[in-house]
Structure formats: structure tokens, C-alpha cells
């Protein structure tokens, strides 16, 4: 069939099928829509969201841990590091995403840099406070037993700081899951995207409730998991 012949015809417009009454009239919750679109919309968004959060907390933890160790050893470093984290934390999340866009584009990198910045303050503070919270006499006892500084750190001080560190990881994870919904303004990933589409497409209630509900459930589930992890890591406490 030559291109010319194709051009000469009017198109056939097939019947695309109407949406269910629930969908076209925008009832509060259409279970049918959720079932139909779980695998093409909701599940991918959920998995992307988990991935974004995990990477952010992991990198944030590594950076915050290193910074806390430095500040633990050199007390003077606490002020500048704390100030920097606080500064980043005060920038409104959407603004921080957009400020990074000229530098790192509309990419996952932009989102991750911003998410990591928000975890830094919480994790840094909690790790540092956890280490500082080790009683002086415990440290002295460890030293008295002949442990070197490093051995004391690894075998005594860090384990005692675990509750505070885990509290920090818990808060950082839940916050990151929350803020990651805003990533949808920059990249089409995460649970924020179905919510954003739901709002801009004539406020489609089902999509908003489904994706929003998933985001809240994810945050609560992560919180619960981390509580259990914290308890498992500190068997000597009845936390």
C-alpha cells in the first residue's frame, strides 16, 4: 500500500471502550480501576518509590556516619557540619529539587542528591548523639581493659549507640518515603506520579486514594520493620 493511498483515506476511529460508570463519574473509589491498573501504574510506582528511598537512606547513612565519626573525634567539626545539614534541611523540598535541575538535569541523580541531603541532618545528629551518649565511665573501663581507641569504638561505643542510630534510621527512612512523593515533580517515578496525574486529570479520586494510601502504608510498614530490626540488634535491651 503506497503512502499516497494511505494519505487519501479518513481514519477509522475504533471504539476504545467506555470506562466503567464508576470511573467516568469519578466515584470515590473504583476497585475495578485499581485491579486493572495495578501492574501498569501502581506496582511500578511502588517499586520505584522503594528503590528511591533505599538508595537515599543508604547513601545518607554512609555520609552521615563518616561525618559523625569525624565530629566525634574532632569536637570542633560539629558546628560546621551541623550548620550545613540544618541549612539543607530548611530548603523547601520542591525548591531544592528545582535548584538542582540546572546542575544534574531531570534525572534520578537530582532526586537522590536532594533526598540524601534531607536524611543527613537526622542521621548525623542521631549517630553523633548516640556516640556521645555513651557514659564516660564505660569508655574509661574499656580503655582500662587495654582496648585501643578503635577497638573501643567498634566493640563498645558503637554497639551502645545502636538504639539512637536505629531511631535516626527509622525517622530518616519514614521522612524519605514521604519526601520521595515530591520526586514526581521532576521525574516520572515514585508514588507521587499517580497522585500528581490524579490531581491534574480532573481530580480522579480513585488514583489519588490508591497511590496515596500506598505511600502511607509503605511509610508505616518501613517504620514497623525498622522497629523490629532495632529490637533484634539490641537484644540486651528490652526496648
Amino acid at each position, binding site marked *: 500500500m503506497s503512502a499516497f493511498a494511505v494519505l487519501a483515506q479518513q481514519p477509522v476511529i475504533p471504539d476504545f471502550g467506555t470506562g466503567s460508570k464508576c470511573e467516568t463519574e469519578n466515584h470515590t473509589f473504583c476497585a475495578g480501576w485499581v485491579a486493572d491498573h495495578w501492574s501498569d501504574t501502581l506496582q511500578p510506582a511502588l517499586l520505584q518509590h522503594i528503590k528511591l528511598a533505599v538508595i537515599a537512606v543508604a547513601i545518607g547513612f554512609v555520609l552521615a556516619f563518616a561525618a559523625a565519626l569525624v565530629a566525634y573525634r574532632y569536637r570542633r567539626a560539629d558546628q560546621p557540619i551541623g550548620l550545613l545539614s540544618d541549612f539543607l534541611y530548611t530548603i523547601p523540598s520542591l525548591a531544592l529539587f528545582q535548584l538542582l535541575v*540546572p546542575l544534574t*538535569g531531570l534525572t534520578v541523580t537530582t532526586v537522590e542528591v536532594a533526598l540524601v541531603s534531607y536524611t543527613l541532618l537526622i542521621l548525623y545528629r542521631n549517630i553523633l548523639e548516640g556516640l556521645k551518649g555513651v557514659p564516660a565511665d564505660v569508655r574509661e573501663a574499656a580503655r582500662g581493659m587495654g582496648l585501643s581507641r578503635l577497638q573501643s569504638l567498634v566493640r563498645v561505643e558503637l554497639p551502645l549507640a545502636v538504639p539512637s542510630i536505629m531511631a535516626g534510621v527509622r525517622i530518616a527512612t519514614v521522612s524519605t518515603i514521604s519526601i520521595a*512523593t515530591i520526586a514526581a515533580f521532576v521525574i516520572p517515578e515514585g508514588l507521587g506520579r499517580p497522585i500528581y496525574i490524579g490531581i491534574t486529570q480532573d481530580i480522579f479520586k480513585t488514583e489519588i486514594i490508591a497511590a496515596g494510601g500506598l505511600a502511607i502504608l509503605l*511509610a508505616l510498614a518501613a517504620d514497623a520493620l525498622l522497629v523490629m530490626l532495632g529490637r533484634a540488634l539490641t537484644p540486651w535491651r528490652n526496648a
Partner: protein
Amino acid sequence: MIRVLADTFSWGTFPDAIRFIIDHPGLLWHKSVQHLELSGAAIGIALLLALPLGIVLGHLGRGSFVAISVSNLGRALPSLVLIAFALLVSQHFFVNNMLALVVLGVPPILTNAYFGIEGVDRNIVEAARGMGMSGRDILWRIEFPLALPLIIAGIRIAAVFIIATATIAAIAGGGGLGDIIVNQATYRLAGVVGASLVVSLIAFGVAFLLTLTRKLLTRSYVSAD
């Protein structure tokens, strides 16, 4: 390295953003005022609801479970989700965004007020009771001043969070600087970055003012914190 980071966009957007700010003072002023109106109203209502409740509960030493749960729940509620849910409740644009912002602002204020008051050294409280001070006097003359740093820290967290979320509220008709930041098609990247700079400055300003307030209010005594 720079190539990897900036292969699509460039540092040049920042001077463009400054240019946008200089070229559109009226627009940015109007949006900033709108933004502060929405945020301010939300912070005010959140304070009215959460502060007395947190202080009273902390003073009585009751409801720590509530305080902790509210705090956890508040953190688990993504701001975008709240804005979206609020839209489902009401389509009157000031009302629904206020609702969302107040819900987000209450947890930090409540929790910090509670733990601030409750965490005052019991010995001091006991000593005061021994001296014959009434419960109300203890609250206002001892517990409240000592808890002030933590209370103001909570207000600061809530304020910054509300200002940040008010930015997103633009997609639900909330107005403010978010109107520019979410509308890249109209205002271009320079406009979006410019408005982002402005809203960041506002957040810093408010945070700074609150920290300053705390310092001024507590300079005459050493706090328990």
C-alpha cells in the same frame, strides 16, 4: 565529572534565574505574600490547636503514647498525599490547603511541647511543689520557660515544613510561589529556579527569626536543654 553532572543543563540557568527575579518583582512579591498568608494562617491554627494541648498533657504527664504516635504518624504522612486527600474533602481552595497544612504542622508542635514540658527535671518541679507553688504556677513559671527551647524548635520545624508544603499546594489551587515553581511551561526553567530561590530565602528567614526569638527569650537564664 562536570560533563556527567551537567550534560543536559548548565550553571547558566542561575544568572537567568536572578534576571527573572529582577524582571518580575511585582509577580514575585504578589506570590510571596500569598504564600505567607497561607503558611501563616496554617501555622497560627496549628499553634492554637497543638500548643495548649501539648503543654497541658506534658504538665499532667499523661498521653505520652498519644504524643509519640502523633509524631510518628505526622512523619509518615507525605505532604503531597495530604494535599491530594484534602482536595477530595473540599474543593474550596483556601480551605482544603489549610486543612492539609494544619494537619502537617500539628505533630511537631504537639510532640515538642509535650516532651519539652514533660522533660523538665523532676527535681526542680518537686522542689517547687515543696515550696508550696500551685500547679499552674509551676507550669507557667518553671516548666514553660525551661521547655521553651524545645517548644520553639518544634514551631520552627512546623513552620519550615508548612512553608515547604505550601509550595506544593499550588497544584491544588493554593497559589503562592508554588504557582511559578510547578508551572515550568509558562515561566521556563529560569523562572522556576528564581522562585525556588525566593521561597528558600523565605524559609531561611522564618527559621532564623524563630531561632532569634528563642535566643532572646532564653538569654536571661540557662535552660534545662
